[in-house]
């Protein structure tokens, strides 16, 4: 645990998320409380429909809870406007998706540059940073390839590079290995582990126990509630 007095990177307090499907109310999350310190590697596990993705969206400031509070670096985000949430996402959070979600009209390099474009970085700065990240992820010879010219594993590496573009504190991964074969998946998970070892906070949403094993802390979601937590001793 970090030194007392320092706020967790992100903290959920009794968070509920309710969706309206026609006349029925669906409770995706029912009173989830969770505090994530900086430098953690958390795996959120659970069957589909358990609320994993909803939890990730809330942690990623993509959505706001119906009830309860979410504190990012100690500050409540519930009352923030869209622009302010976008600011947090752009500067402090990186996303890695199951389907990679690369922009297919752009090259690998340009995809990694994209988050920096929205932060107003100059072209030369962006180019240098994007190239450096892609090289670090072993894609030095793929800079000018478009997503459809890359393998699944390569695309996911580009996505990871994109998530790291603005040097975020938190990297959120939603089933990052779901569309990859197991060997490629393992190498992606290794990459995530090394990111965490560098001090970055990583959240991994998965239903695969083997993937979750890479995390230091594993929580289990069922029907929108946390049912179990395992934390490895340091």
């Amino acid at each position, binding site marked *: 645990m970090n030194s007392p007095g320092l706020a967790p990177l992100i903290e959920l307090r009794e968070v509920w998320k309710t969706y309206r499907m026609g006349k029925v109310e669906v409770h995706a999350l029912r009173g989830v409380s969770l505090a994530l310190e900086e430098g953690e590697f958390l795996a959120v596990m659970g069957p589909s429909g358990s609320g994993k993705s909803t939890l990730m*969206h809330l942690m*990623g400031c*993509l959505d706001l809870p119906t009830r309860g509070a979410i504190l990012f670096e100690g500050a409540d985000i519930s009352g923030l406007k869209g622009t302010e949430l976008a*600011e947090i*996402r752009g500067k402090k959070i990186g996303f890695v998706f199951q389907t990679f979600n*690369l922009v297919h*009209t752009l090259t690998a390099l340009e995809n990694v540059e994209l988050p920096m*474009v*929205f932060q107003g970085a100059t072209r030369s700065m962006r180019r240098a940073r994007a190239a450096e990240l892609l090289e670090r992820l072993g894609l030095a010879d793929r800079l000018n390839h478009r997503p459809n010219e890359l393998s699944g594993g390569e695309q996911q590496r580009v996505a990871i590079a994109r998530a790291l573009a603005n040097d975020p504190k938190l990297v959120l991964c939603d089933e990052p290995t779901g569309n990859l074969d197991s060997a490629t998946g393992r190498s992606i998970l290794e990459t995530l582990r090394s990111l965490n070892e560098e001090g970055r906070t990583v959240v991994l949403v998965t239903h695969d126990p083997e993937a979750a094993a890479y995390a230091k802390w594993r929580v289990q979601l069922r029907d929108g509630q946390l049912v179990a937590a395992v934390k490895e001793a340091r």
Partner: protein
Amino acid sequence: MIKDYLSLALRSMRHRQKRSWLTIIGILIGITAVVALVSLGQSMQRAVNKQFEEFGYNLVTIYPGSLRGGFRGAFSATFEIDTGLIAGVEGVEAVGAMLYKSAYVKGGEPPSQVEGFLPVIGLSPGIARVFSQFKLQEGRFFTDADHYAAILGQNVPKDLGVEVGRELEIEGQPFEVVGLLAESGMGDNNSAIFIPLETLWEILGDRGKVSMVWVKVGQGYDAEGVAERLKARLKEARGKEDFSVQTMKQLQQLIGQAIGILQAFLGGIAGISLLVGGIGVMNTMYTAVLERTREIGVMKAVGAKDSQVMWLFLIESGLMGLVGGAIGTALGLGMDILAVVITKRFIQTNVLEFGFSAWLVFGALAFSFVIGALSGLLPARSAAKLKPVEALRYE
């Protein structure tokens, strides 16, 4: 920043090439029509101005009635007017009168004799001093001794089979052709026969009546001022204002206004096609927003603000407008040039005069960009307002 957005927009347009081009064509047609019509109007205006410059601005005309009835009315009406009085007004250098008539003329030698009605215009002796416009290509102007002498408009020799030095018949009277007029910018003069005013009165009656009076303003005098004095003096002498006094500037303005109204009317019609083009852009952009919903979600996830997403789409639609506008402007100007060439070469009139107008080009480009951007406004707003979570979930 704008540069990055531009390059992103270009990327996405190139990706959807066929659809982008079809959308651009919609704008292109509208801008082509507007530019062609506006440019044609300008060409017309330029030709009119050129003719007035040839005429010179030191002329004042006096018509019976008022010009409100239109030129046709003005030409067929006649009045009696004291040219001596006019000549006495300060600043008047020369006075000439004209009477427009139509007469039965006969030309050529039998068996190839031609006959029919042609405009016959009576000229008072003063006309030669008023008009430098009466340039003769051949022969001479009337002298005081001439009675049954005629000067032909440029096209008459061909139409009637006569030439300078020969004779023709007007209302059964033989006339000697003494001169041939050089080609005139005033189309009507080219097919008319000119004879001394006295003679016209003699053979067709209406003695003392004229269709219009031309006044040449002396050097150092302001045409407007002379026109004012003429108006006051004539009103005083006649006791009523049953005439109009117009300087060439005023006449030019009048014609300019008429062209302007025509131009605005036709431009408005062409504008409708531009509107349709704009709706095409809107349609394409809505489709693009729908197609790229997931991409928008990704952009928002990586930190794009609503306003940034909006700009991205606005620039893309504006760019489509601009590309359509650029091609349309070029095509529109090309159509004007073609019209000018055709009228000059094949119809042989100088009613059009092409000139490059920078403001028209810049105006058309700016306008087409604005049309594109405006049409993209609603789709861009709907893109900006997408909720990131829902956009990411969109299949």
